[in-house]
């Protein structure tokens, strides 16, 4: 329970600190600075990076991870990608619509029933 409360608290702080961003500029940066290389132009995810489209992660969590990743992702320091730019990228990711459920896509629904 203590851990749960801590998580809620941190998430609340993160939301409170969430910088506003420019989604249009974020889309441009997402392509320009190579984010798409692993995550896809639609931020749909791939073998090399998880889906980021419509992410439910708070902005600060995303920014912190970009600064100090622990997987195969390169670290992007403020020298090459500012907090402001990251906020724009985050706004772009949040602006992307969620995927339709697989059952609503005939090809995928067919696959479900095979």
């Amino acid at each position, binding site marked *: 329970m203590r851990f749960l409360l801590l998580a809620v608290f941190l998430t609340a702080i993160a939301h409170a600190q969430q910088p506003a961003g420019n989604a249009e500029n974020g889309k441009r940066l997402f392509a*320009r*600075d*190579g984010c*798409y*290389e*692993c995550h*896809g*132009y*639609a*931020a*749909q*995810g*791939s*073998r*090399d990076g998880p*889906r980021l*489209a419509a992410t439910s992660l708070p902005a600060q969590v995303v920014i912190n991870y970009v600064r*100090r*990743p*622990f*997987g*195969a992702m*390169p*670290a*992007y*320091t403020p*020298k*090459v*990608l500012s907090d402001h730019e990251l906020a724009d990228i985050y706004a772009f990711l949040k602006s992307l619509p969620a*995927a*339709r*459920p*697989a059952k609503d*896509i005939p*090809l*995928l629904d*067919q*696959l*479900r029933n*095979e």
Partner: protein
Amino acid sequence: MAKSDASRVGRRGFLRGAAAGAAALASTPPPAARAQDVPKRGSTPLPSASQAAAETSPPPPRADVYTTSRPGSDFMVDVVKSLGFEYVAANPGSSFRGLHESIINYGNNRNPELLTCCHEESSVAMAHGYAKIEGKPMMIMAHGTVGLQHASMAIYNAYADRVPVYIVLGNILDATYRRSVVEWTHSVQDAAAMVRDYTKWDDAPVSLTHFAESAVRAYQIAMTPAMGPVVLVADAVLQEEPVPEADRPSLRIPKLSAIGPPAADAAAIHEVARLLVAAENPVMVAGRCARTPQGLELLVELAEVLQAPVQDRPFRFRMNFPTRHPLYGGNLGEADLVLALEDPDFWQATHAQTPVNRMGMETRSTSKPGTRLITISSIDLNSKSNYQDFGRYPEADLAIAADAEASLPALIEACKRLITPDRKHALQERGAKLADAARRTRERALEEAAWGWDASPITTARLSAELWNAVRKEDWSLVSDVVFLSYWPTRLWDFTKHYQYIGGQGAFGVGYGAPAAVGAALANRKHGRLSVNIQCDGDLNYAPGVLWTAAHHRIPLLTVMHNNRAYHQERMYVQDMASRAERGIDRANIGTSITDPNIDYATMAKAYGVYGVGPIENPDDLAPAIRRALEVVRRGEPALIDVLTQPR
């Protein structure tokens, strides 16, 4: 060999014609030589009757000197035919012209049939793909010098992928037979030296008897696990000189021995079985375990006996296990025993790199403390030093040097003997949990596939789903890799048969994809299978002439371009380096893009005589394009669809 060079007579059988030719030359010495060549009076004995006759008789017809009824290359074809080759792939080359001629005329261009290739790398990679479907080698021919230099990367791929390829090199070892600068530059003392580090065996026979024995030995070595490419030098003099009449009765072709792959010994099998049956969470990692269709069936049987999962990530080297089987998957991090079967990179499967050092020097095990690691691998039987394809030392608790597939029958029986009724009940409970996990993994994959469904460039998930819908009712075979497609075909398609997937390059040498697909499609052709190649754009540009080979030889193959207009893997590496250096993160496209101009692959295909369409940018246009292309393929021809895709 140099039939027009009348001055060369040494080792020929045509003494009569040669002597006459020499006499003719002697009768007309070049002007500069006449004065000094005049013999001193009284120093020369009188000519014999035969010499006198040779000097005074008219020379024999040219054809008597030129022709031969039984060149050595005919016998070489007898040898090749005895080994059962269906095809020989070659870009034509003068150092094996004798063998070329014997194959098409003496051998009637059947078994083997000559395949015209536009690059030696294509010849070898075609043989590579063919062998992974057909289970036996294709022969290729190349110059011992320039041809082999072209072929070398593809040979290394086949070597690292443990695939048999039978390479015959032309060479003119005897300097007196080389008739021009071309033949001097195409000759070499030790032709196979260039590829000896990544072939299993080679020889340069000096007689036809020697050729026959080495040819059969080479085949046997190539096909004995761990399999690999072999090289046989067909000396041009042996090819082109006639077989001396006196030698003909003694020429024979040794029989090819039945090959018994090396299986693990009984004590080792018993120990592995004991550990597997006792383990609470064993996981099997299959690298190149299933050499044959039987290998797949055996692995399924072992998994079901143990109710233990099988996984083949990250590279999926072979079709080892049905992708929708409830035991396909498993979590190495939770395993208390991991059994690696012919996994060439087992260390990587059980370790992760830390983020501190991206070059991989600081790593950590992803296994639980105390997890037992067991390997069964024929790779351990064929180790070489220079090229580092053997990977990092895996620190296994038990390392068994043996062919995994050959070891499975005894392992299955040993496990069955050790499983008590109580244990069987526990294993079934484990199997039920694994089946549930596999079902959830599949459902998750379908939901993930939906993201970016309507995006352009087209997602690799959408591409894979559309292709599956088009081929799922056919007898299909995916003859390309899935790694750069984020594994979507193996996540979505129902792979059940051994020929439905052939893995990748082996040594990750780019340029393998297109020719290997054509070779595999050729092997599939006589079985009536629909071959599908999802083709990376960078790979196709190494030697696109293989499209022409596919068209020329009527090889049905559906090629769908995974056209991300980049050497994308390298772009990601450059991006990584830029981030480390804290500069220019927006410049990783330089030197890695394949744009400006964009390559028109549909037009490229048409230029080679292949049906081509695209580029397809709208995902909704994909299904109709695939339908039209399949109509072409069903007629027995290759077809290509260019699709603009997401990077991965």
